[in-house]
C-alpha cells in the first residue's frame, strides 16, 4: 500500500530507519542553540522557515504536479496575517500562527479556485499573475500593510533568540510532519492520482478540480505557516516578501532538493539560505554569479535534485 515511487530517495529505507533519522535530525537541530551564536541561530531559524515553505511548494509541484510561480504570495499572506494579528490582536505567537494558516487557506481557496482550471505552463503563468497582483495589493493597501515600506510597527514577540528558534523548529517539524502525513493519507494519494492521470481519476469518481484545489490549499496553508515564522522572526514584513524573486527562490529550492521528495526541498531550503549568507559575506557582489553557476552545475550533476530519484516512467 505504500506509495513507494513517489517517495523517491527515502523509499530505499524502512519506515523505522526513516523515523529514527528524522528523530536524530530533530535532536541535532534542537541542540543547535548550544552550538551556534545568536546570529547563526537566527539565520538557521529563517532557513528552516524557508525550508518548510519549499517543502510545501514541493507538495504542490512534485506531489501535485502543479508548478507554481506565485508561492511567495502565501508567504506574504501568512506573514501579513500574523503581523497584523500581533499588532492589533494578541502577542500570542501560536494564535498568530493559527490566524496565518487560516488566511493561507482562505487565500488558497480564492485564488486556487481559478488557478486549478489551468494546466502546466499556464498554471505557472497564472500563479505568477496571482503573485504579482498580491504584491501590488500589499503595496497599495498602505493603511493596512504600511505600503512598500513594510509593516514596521509589529510589536516584538517577547521570545529571545533561543526560544524563538525552538518555536520555529517545532512549527517546522510539525508542519513538515503534517505535509508528510497528508501526502501519505487518502487525500494525498488522490492528489498524486490527479497528477498522474486526470482522466482516470474522473472515471474513478473523483472531482479532479476539487482534488487539485485541495493540493493548493494544503500547500498554501503550510506555506502561510512558514510566512508567519518569517514575520515573527523579524517582526517585519514588506511587499518584497511576496515578489516573484522569492517565488523563484522557493522553486529553485524545490528543484535543487528534488521535487519528488519533501525532505529534499526542506534541506535545500535551509542550505540555500545559509549558503547565500555565507557567499554574500565572503564574496560580496559576486555571490550571485556563484549562485547562478551552482544552479547550472546542479542541473547536470544532480539530475533529480539532492535527494530525488527518477519517478518510474510511463510505458
Amino acid at each position: 500500500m505504500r506509495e513507494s515511487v513517489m517517495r523517491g530517495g527515502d523509499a530505499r529505507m524502512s519506515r523505522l530507519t526513516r523515523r529514527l533519522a528524522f528523530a536524530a535530525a530533530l535532536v541535532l537541530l534542537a541542540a543547535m542553540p548550544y552550538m551556534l551564536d545568536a546570529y547563526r541561530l537566527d539565520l538557521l531559524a529563517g532557513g528552516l522557515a524557508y525550508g518548510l515553505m519549499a517543502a510545501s511548494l514541493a507538495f504542490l509541484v512534485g506531489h501535485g504536479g502543479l508548478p507554481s510561480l506565485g508561492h511567495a504570495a502565501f508567504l506574504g499572506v501568512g506573514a501579513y496575517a500574523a503581523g497584523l494579528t500581533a499588532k492589533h490582536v494578541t502577542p500570542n505567537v501560536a494564535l498568530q500562527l493559527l490566524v496565518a494558516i487560516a488566511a493561507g487557506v482562505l487565500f488558497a481557496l480564492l485564488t486556487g479556485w481559478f488557478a486549478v482550471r489551468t494546466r502546466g505552463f499556464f498554471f505557472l503563468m497564472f500563479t505568477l499573475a496571482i503573485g504579482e497582483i498580491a504584491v501590488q495589493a500589499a503595496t497599495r493597501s498602505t493603511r493596512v500593510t504600511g505600503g512598500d515600506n513594510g509593516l514596521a510597527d509589529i510589536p516584538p514577540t517577547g521570545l529571545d533568540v533561543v526560544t524563538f528558534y525552538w518555536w520555529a523548529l517545532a512549527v517546522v517539524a510539525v508542519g513538515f510532519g503534517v505535509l508528510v502525513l497528508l501526502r501519505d493519507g487518502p487525500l494525498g494519494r488522490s492528489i498524486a492520482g490527479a497528477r498522474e492521470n486526470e482522466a482516470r481519476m474522473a472515471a474513478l469518481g473523483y472531482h479532479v478540480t476539487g482534488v487539485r484545489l485541495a493540493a493548493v490549499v494544503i500547500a498554501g496553508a503550510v506555506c502561510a505557516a512558514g510566512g508567519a515564522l518569517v514575520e515573527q522572526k523579524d517582526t517585519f514584513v514588506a511587499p518584497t516578501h511576496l515578489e516573484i524573486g522569492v517565488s523563484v527562490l522557493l522553486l529553485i529550492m524545490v528543484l535543487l532538493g528534488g521535487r519528488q521528495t519533501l525532505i529534499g526541498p526542506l534541506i535545500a531550503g535551509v542550505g540555500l539560505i545559509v549558503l547565500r549568507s555565507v557567499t554574500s559575506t565572503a564574496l560580496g557582489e559576486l555571490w550571485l554569479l556563484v549562485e547562478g553557476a551552482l544552479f547550472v552545475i546542479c542541473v547536470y550533476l544532480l539530475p533529480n535534485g539532492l535527494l530525488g530519484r527518477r519517478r518510474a516512467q510511463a510505458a
Partner: protein
Amino acid sequence: MRHAVLALLVLSVSACGGAATQSAADDSTIKVGAIVSQTGVYSALGDDMETAMKLYLEGHGNKLGGKQAELIVADDAGNPETGQQKAKQLTLENKVDVITGLIASPVAVAVAKEAGAQKTPVVIANAGADALGGPGVFRVSYTNYMHGYAAGKYAVEAYGKEGAVLMGADYSAGTETLKGFEDGYTKAGGAKPIKQILTPFGKTQNFQPYLSQIPSEAKFLYTFYAGGEAITFAKNFKQFGYDSKIKLLTCQNITDEDVLQAIGADAEGITSVGLYSPALDNPENAAFVSMWKAKTGKNPSVVALQSWDAMQLIDKAAAAGGSLSDALAKVGEIKSPRGTFTLDADKHNPVQNWYARTYEGGVNKVVATIPPDPAS
C-alpha cells in the same frame, strides 16, 4: 535520508565554523557596517555609495575619530529581509559600532528596527522614508517630504501660484515627495494642485500614456522619478514635445549624475530642486569633487555626497568620544560639500539648504537657494 543527515551535519558545521573570527570590539578601532545594494535594482546607487565611503576613509588615513576604522560592506540585494539579516550579522557577529548605508527605504525601515533592538546606532545615507528617524537613527540624506516641500516653496516663486500638476512613481518615496510638494506649495500661497498622476513603480516602461493625462489648463508639472524611470521620464517628456507645452520642475533624482549620461541631450534645461550640486561653490565641495573626479572621472552623485557625509558624521561623533549613539546626536554643524547642515534634535533629520538647479552645459547650475523651513 542518509544524505539528509549528512547534509545537515555539513550545514551545522559550516554554520559553526568561522564563529571564532568574531572579536570583541576594542576601543582602538571603530567598526562601521555598511548595508549597501551590491546586487539587485539599486546596485547602481550601491556602487557610488561604497566608493564614496571608501574614498572618505582613504582620504582620512583610514581613521574615524582618530581610531582605526574598519568598514564592513554587506549586500542587501535591495531586499529588506536580507538587509535585516545583514544587520543582525553586523551587530551580533561583527559587533559593529554603527550601521550606515541603506539605499531603499524598506531596507532602512527593517534595518533601523533591528539595529534599535540591538542598540546599535544607524546613520542613513540615502533612504528618504518620512517615518524614519528618532532615537539611535540619524540621517544625512533627506526626508521625501522635505525634498518635495522645498520644491513646492520654490515653485510658488518661480512657476506661479496655480496650475500645478504632480506626477510621480506610485510608491512611498513618490507619494511622500508629492505630498511634501503640495504642502510646501500651498503653504507658500500656491493653489491646490489641479491633478496628481501616479504611475506604477518599477513597471512603467513608457510615460506617454500618463503624460497625455496632463490637463490642458496646467501651468507646470512637478515630477518625482529616480533611476531607470528618471531616464525614461526625461526622454519621454522631451521627445513627446511636452517641453514646449508645459514647464517642468523635478526632484533631484531626474538630473542626478547617476542618470544624466543616459538621458543625454534630453536633460538639457531641466530645472530640479535638490540638496546638492557639484557646481556648488565652497571649499569642501571643491575638494570633494576633485577627489571624486580623480577616482571615477565623473561628477559625484547625490548618493555619493550623502555617503561621504555619513562617514563624516560618524567621524565627528567618534572623535567626540563617549557613547557613539549620544555623540551622533550632538555633532552639531557639519561642513558638507552641500553646505553646512545640522540634524534636528527630535528625529535627527538634516536641516539643510535646498537648491534649485538647472542642467546646462553638463552641470546642474544652482539658480536659487531655498533655505530650510523653520516651521517644519
